[in-house]
């Protein structure tokens, strides 16, 4: 594994998935995984498989919905989309994350 890549932080993956679905609309697991890889560039080390427990977790919470559909390769695949609760949660979670990030930034800023 590349030394310079970060592991995905617990909890951040959920938000990434939600944001992806918000931006792209209904998408299958592979699509979500690829999109996250693309957006993060090479900064993240992530097995694509880890997306699935995260998807299940979000589905159990009722934040996303899943439906079987047909993929671009003409194959049956499960498509995930945001639920009504999910849309609301994105705002909350985004705020939450920004607060943490801001706090972290203050800690990391060179003290004067």
């Amino acid at each position, binding site marked *: 594994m590349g030394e310079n890549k970060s592991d995905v932080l617990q909890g951040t993956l959920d938000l990434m998935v939600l944001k992806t679905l918000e931006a792209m609309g209904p998408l*299958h*697991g*592979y*699509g979500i*995984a*690829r999109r996250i890889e693309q957006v993060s560039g090479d900064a993240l080390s992530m*097995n*694509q*498989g*880890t997306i*699935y*427990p995260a998807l*299940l*977790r979000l*589905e*159990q*919470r*009722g934040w996303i919905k899943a439906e079987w559909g047909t*993929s671009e*390769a003409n*194959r*049956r*695949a*499960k498509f995930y989309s945001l639920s009504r609760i999910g849309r609301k949660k994105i705002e909350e979670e985004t705020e939450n994350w920004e607060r943490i990030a801001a706090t972290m930034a203050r800690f990391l800023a060179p003290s004067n």
Partner: protein
Amino acid sequence: MNLLRILLARCAALFRRGKLDADLNEELRAHIELAIHENLHHGMSPGEARTAALRAFGGVTQTRETYREQRSFPLLQQLGRDLRFGLRQIRKSPGFSVVVIVTLALGVGANTTVFSIVDAVMLRPLPYAQPQQLVEVSSADAGSPVARSVSYPDFFDWREQNHSFEHLVSYDDNSYTLTGITRAVHLDAEIVSWDLLPMLGIQPELGRGFVAGEEKLGSRVVLISHSLWMSQFGGDTSIVGRTIHLGGEAFTVVGVMPPSFRFPVDKPQNSLWTTLAVDSDALKNRGSHSQAVMGRLRPGVSVAQADQEMKAIAGRLAMQYPDTNTHNNSAKVQLELRAILGETRTLMLVVLGAVAFVLLIACGNIANLQLARVRDRQREIAVRCALGATRASVLRQLITESLVLSIAGGLVGCAVAFVSVPGVLALIGNSVPRAANAGVDLGVLGFALATSLLSGLVFGIVPATAASKTDLVKTLQRGGQARIYGHDWLRMAVLVAQVALGVVLTAGAGLLTTSFVKLIRTDEGFNPDHVLTFAFDTPDSSYKNRRPQVYRQYFEKLRALPGVESAAGSMILPMTDDDAHISFENPERPVAKGLRPNAELMPVTPGFFQTMQISQIEGRDFTEADNMQAPQVMIVNQAFVKTYFPGEDPLGKKLKPGAGNGSPDGPPWRQIIGVVGNVRHSATQREMQPAMYLPASQLPNWCCVSSVVRTSVDPISLEPAVRKLVASMDSDIPVTDVRTMPDMISMRLAQPRFTTVLLGSFSVLSLILTVVGLYGVMAYSVTQRTREIGLRFALGAQRGAVLGMVLRTAATLLGAGIAIGLLAALAFGPILAMMLYGTGPRNPAVLAAVTVVTALAGLLAAYIPAARAASVDPMRALRTE
């Protein structure tokens, strides 16, 4: 909200595992295929595309595993796996499983049965509001623990002077004949002070409770039970305000009580409640102690504080009224439930303890069986360890197996309890208050489940710990036949403990049996065979002052019935636990009024002693000539003579028992005209009490005498004839309590009988379990030692020596167990003292018998394996491994 949703999703997932697994597989497959598809687009070869897709994905299996964990409850599923495995193990060794389940079912069944009764009797709160504030207040003689009844004037003073109680209520049993309906019925009633319902915190179903003014003399109001309202008045709501006739007097019904209402709780048959206004005779008599008193403590007042205050009040009253209260100079306040239970509490605890012993012995047996089996499973366990099972997982598996067995045993045990509870209740009869409400309900089933699970842990954890410590390499090296060193002593210790418990239990049962046999064989002082008893009221309203003639004519007709040898009447029947005490004046030993001695009072008709076959020691019986006009007379029993005229001839002496005969001069002087033998008043009476017999014809205002009839035919066959006879005299008088004397005695012996039967069964059960356990341990140890024994034979040992060797081991274990058991029995015996009659709690004959029986049964159990050991063929034994 979130948590609930997740939980629900996970629960749902439990039941759709197959479908969800298939979905996941398909989804993952789609993922890989999409990735391959894209890689092909980027110009990879099919092989490269696939490898790259899989690499990017990470571990498919790990993903699936994490996904499943996220999806449902992994621990639950693991438990499911262990359970399935446990069930398979149980099916694999049915013999072992059946023995364990049956043993446990007996233990749990017996415990559940007893617990269901203890629950109903001791644990359930009284059916009133805030029952923990309700207390029983009794009168007492300072320094004596005996609780006494209270007189009305004392009660009124208590009620007025105390600051501890919100309400203080007197109550006393009574009975009435309800007339003016199709057929007169006899009903049990309770006389209470007005605020009974406010004290209990209970509202009538219909109408109202009493008000204070209804204690006023002449007031006749009544509350009726729901069942009486239904059976006699068809549930008609216009009953409130109506007049009904009780004992010939008109009472106004003020209310109907709810169906569940019982007061007192140990008299569920009560169907009428009246105010104390009906007790006009006793209201002013400070010497007549008839009332029980119950109170509700004020908030913040403790039982001890109330007790202290009541003692002070009683002390003051004794100073104020020395003539009547010298022997009632103290009081006692105790929680109502405790007062109702009285000595039954000890009895319940003894039975509960005994049945717990049975379960412990059963657990001992199962633990020993498990230990033996675990040893046989060494190889299996070692293999599982070798395949990577951790110690924790082996432990978990073995305990799960025990728990599966224990739950199975518990279920069968519940079935046992369902069957046995009615039987035990029949045995108890009404000898234990509140027992009749017992039943196997949810709480009891919960107890059974908890007991079985606890037992499962007890008998499962020791063998499981032992097994999980298995030394893998050594066991496999020896072909799985390794011993678990250091656990033989464990089996032995379990066995010794079982024997000891069994001895304690059997000793207790032995004592109770001895006592019960003594009770049955006791001379009642009369001959109960072929005696029929029954009762009917002669209400004051139509019989006051006519009673002597009415009874004389009635008994003449009764004696004339075919099958009747003799008949007589007595106000109080022997063996009914009924008694009346009254003080008397003895001119030869004058004492202050308050210190006068008292004795049992028995108003009887002529022929009573002859009918009951009570021995006439001296003098004569009463005759019809002993009426109001004749000199007033009395007869005393031997105990009376022994106590008050030791070494003197009592005939011709004059005493004045405080029993008024209606004359304005008060109670008359009476001459003693005869001495009769002592008679038992209660089946469980320890000493014969001094008694005074007075002719009923010289107490014309006293109601009423019960009839005793000695018959030449089956006594109960006379029931229709006596009912007809009484009805022909007055159709408004129902005949009640028709019983043969032997039945009555048997009823009175219900309590000692049921404790004896229960403890007896428990001790037999424990003896069987112990013997089986001993047999199992010895048989197993002989099998284990076959090779050693064979070697001994090969080296020239005699068969007798081998037999002796095995028996010696058994005898040592038995000896240790019996010794410990005997010591414990000696230590705990006194707990039983109040339940024993005619034997001390440390009866050496009983202990000797228990020792002999246990030793013999134990040696017999050990003899079979010992004999098998002695018949081992050395050649075959040496070849066994």
